């Protein structure tokens, strides 16, 4: 049994709980125990760093400090936005001792910077990929457009995850379960991110361009690893369709849902029924 620290983040307990469900289901299948960071808080997301620098560091620092307090050396952060905020905080505070001391004082907790932060793809690569082939019961025989968005790949100097232009990690992983990734142009274009509520028109336009390109290239499904991207591409589909002046019904799946389907995990356990755009396969 492998034990990893787990930071679900707010979205995964609410609007994107199917992401959490599918992550947990997948980990179960591979005998990985996810241990939630006790009493975790919101990372502050875009709002905090838009409005206050110290707040935008203190909120993630509290999360990481709690993980340290509980003896965790490695945590998985499925939400790309949280992953980004936590990684940037870790990087910033590790590079500036004075600032780290100041933030420690704000959160009233010591923070050493010892916890390794993994996104869901990195966790899968580390613990799951080698065993994946043996467990496939229903190859995911569909054309997919893997959508990475901004937060998984930028800033590259800090995240060091995949290359900034035309990343491949998710594509390569999905090939292992029988999917056929399409070569498309909008893998790392922004979907509109935190404007989902405040600027739905912009989200419709930006996400519209992304969805249209995926469909134009023959994709049958879009695959994401970020709740914000999912919300914009799935929940905001009416805004997208009204921008595109057409009806596009390509479903948007989390990468963990696609892997789960290939392993034969039930649709309910993976939370597919929670999507706005129905998943028909």
């Amino acid at each position, binding site marked *: 049994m492998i034990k990893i620290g787990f930071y679900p983040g*707010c*979205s995964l*307990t*609410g*609007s*994107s*709980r199917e992401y959490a469900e599918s992550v947990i289901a997948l980990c179960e299948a591979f005998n990985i125990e996810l241990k939630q960071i006790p*009493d*975790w*808080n*919101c990372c*502050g*997301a*875009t*709002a*905090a*760093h*838009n*409005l*206050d*620098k*110290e*707040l935008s560091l*203190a*909120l993630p620092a*509290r999360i990481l400090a709690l993980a340290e307090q509980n003896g965790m050396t490695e945590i998985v952060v499925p939400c790309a936005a949280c992953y980004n905020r936590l990684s940037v905080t870790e990087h910033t505070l590790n590079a500036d001792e004075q600032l780290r001391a100041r933030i420690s004082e*704000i*959160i*009233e907790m010591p923070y050493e910077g010892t916890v390794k932060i993994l996104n869901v793809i990195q966790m899968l690569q580390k613990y799951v990929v080698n065993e994946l082939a043996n467990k496939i019961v229903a190859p995911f025989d569909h054309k997919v457009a893997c959508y990475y968005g*901004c937060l998984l790949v*930028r*800033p*590259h100097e800090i995240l060091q995850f995949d290359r*900034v232009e035309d990343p491949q990690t998710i594509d390569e992983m999905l090939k292992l379960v029988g999917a056929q990734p399409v070569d498309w142009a909008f893998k*790392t*274009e*922004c979907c*509109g*991110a*935190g*404007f989902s*509520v*405040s*600027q*739905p028109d*912009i989200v419709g336009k*930006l996400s519209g361009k992304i969805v249209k390109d995926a469909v134009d290239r023959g994709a049958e499904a879009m695959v994401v690893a970020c709740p914000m991207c999912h919300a914009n591409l799935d*929940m905001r589909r009416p805004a997208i369709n009204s921008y595109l002046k057409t009806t596009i019904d390509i479903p948007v799946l989390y990468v963990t849902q696609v892997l789960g389907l290939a392993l034969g995990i039930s649709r309910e356990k993976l939370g597919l*029924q*929670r*999507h*706005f755009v129905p998943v028909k396969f």
Partner: protein
Amino acid sequence: MNNHLHHEERGLAADVKQTTSVAAEKCYQCGKCSAGCPVASEMDLPPSLVMRMLQTNRPENDEKLLRSKTIWLCLSCEMCISRCPMSIDIPKVMDFLRRRSRDEGKVTDRAKDIVAFHDSFLLSVEKTGKLYELGLIAAYKMKTLHLMQDVTVAPEMIQKGKLHFIPEMVKNRKNIAQIFKKTIKAKN
């Protein structure tokens, strides 16, 4: 010794440099940022123009920047810096300009929805330690009076189990309150 003679720098660009270490004079106006920015066409000032205005070091341009819609439209997607030949951290500059704009009460009316959303978001985090989505939407609607927006989405979210009626709470809320008090609230 080592007391190098520096020209005294003033104005917004100097403040940007001091806070973010981003030197506006590094920008040679190639425009690659504006070319790649997903929201450039919605902006009143595309990112390369923001950098140019900082370079001019003129009070009236500083003022225009702080009252621009651009700074609030920036999505922090980091496309600009990832392709900038001079590695200029424009997102960091935008962060700085947003904070300065708020501190000086210069937030443009054209961005009030965006700022209201950020405020509602942080309010939720301050009160509960986490994001309470239903509360966020309610607070946002009260702030903006966009009462009818998304009236169809919310019920469907509830039906799909995506919205809680009761917020999840951090146990140590005192700790969270302290964090807010020592950071964002200390300045306002």
